């Protein structure tokens, strides 16, 4: 496990996904009418073909991973608990928070916070510039979309803009 064999993992993952699709997801999530005139027109025809194709490709990939195990030769990323990985987790937090804050604060103020948080995660050296952009960019975009392009940007429950 020291050196992940990506091919093998991708192959196994794709195969498992394809099996899950065929066994569970497609029967559950694709509604097929009672009578289908031609089998090729059934709503689950394409998804099933694609799932079989994925299964085939996944198995191929797995075999390739087992028998041609030559390491990719690409640079490996830092280990799981490096600073980089923590920052990636932070980005996940920013994305989630951004999305959840839009209905509460409105898109403009949520964007200001998201920008600030991201710039902090990037540890930007240009603090002043970042601060300025963080505030101005969402406001300018708001003005443009709402007042010129006619797209009402969602407003929050607190500070409303004209």
């Amino acid at each position, binding site marked *: 496990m020291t050196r992940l064999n990506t091919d093998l993992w991708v192959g196994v993952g794709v195969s498992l996904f394809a099996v899950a699709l065929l066994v569970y997801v497609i029967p559950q999530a694709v*509604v097929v*009418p009672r009578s289908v005139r031609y089998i090729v027109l059934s709503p689950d025809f394409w998804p099933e073909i694609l799932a079989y194709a994925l299964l085939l490709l996944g198995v191929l990939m797995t075999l390739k991973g087992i028998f041609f195990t030559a390491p990719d030769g690409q640079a490996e990323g830092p280990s799981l608990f490096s600073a980089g990985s923590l920052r990636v987790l932070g980005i996940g937090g920013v994305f989630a928070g951004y999305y959840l804050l839009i209905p509460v604060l409105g898109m403009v103020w949520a964007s200001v916070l998201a920008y600030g948080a991201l710039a902090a995660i990037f540890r930007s050296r240009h603090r002043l510039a970042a601060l300025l952009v963080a505030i101005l960019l969402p406001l300018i975009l708001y003005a443009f979309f*709402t*007042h*010129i392009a*006619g*797209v*009402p940007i969602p407003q929050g429950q607190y500070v*409303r803009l004209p």
Partner: protein
Amino acid sequence: MKSIKRILGASAILATAAMPAFAADYPKRPVTLVVPYGTGGSTDIASRSLTNVLGKHSSHPIMVVNRVGAAGVTGSVSVANARDDGHTVLAARVGSHTINPAMKRTLPYTLDDFRFVGVFELNAVVCATGANSGIDTIEQLMDKIKADPGSVSYVSTGVGTLLQLASIMIMDAYGIENPLAVTHLPMRGGGEAATAVFAGNATFVCTNSSDLASFVANKQLKPLLTTTKERLPAFDAPTVAELGHPELEVLVGWTGIAGPANLPDEAAVQWGEWLKIATSDQGFVDHLTRMGSEVVYMDPDESKQFIQHQYEVFKELVTRLDLSVE
């Protein structure tokens, strides 16, 4: 780029300056009019013309917003679930509010989720076939279907659209026993659908007169019937009453304004006023008439009744022919 911004900015300022201030309780801020269909379609054009007129009469701008998807369902759901402060309303359409509720069992809304404030535009259905199809009358078409249902096909813009239901209903009225045996060819857009008939990939199409006007004017499609009471000048085709099927007059496209079920009264009243103003505005009437529509004004009760009646007729057909979709 600066100069463009200035021009745009200037026009925006001009637009705002042109609005007289009204001291009404509604609207308190800009109103969003959701159009559940794409830019450039008949619902979109009708709605944009409406807001163009209303801009002069509202203290805040009314913004048209397109929320496209699933034959009008995506946009309609968004309004049904919107904050019911009256600042989000829907341009409801025949497809999203009578056909889909009648056909789709798992539709995430019902007619009761909306409060209708008025219908302002009607758009009759015209059936047409390719100019070179060799079919000149609706009877010929129906005879052809009776002889060999598999040899005939009609286009639509998908399941649960006016195009599909109108074709089926007309075939049903003409005594075709199993309209489902006729091939239904769903396309992604109205223009594509009419083009498919013109190019000979399908036999006929029944849709809003406005969508066929240019094809008929260019003699690419031949109109077979219209569901209007009187003949339309641009379409040289008999009306359904002339053909002995006045019951088909219920097949008419419409656009109305609806809010969420708990739409506040002041918003409903104000929209009623606005619709009255717009439907008596000569520019608005001219504009929509030129696009092939008929401008009407129906008050909330009339609208509700009109929509309910159409829904019930469609529902009966759907149940009888087992057209419903899971």
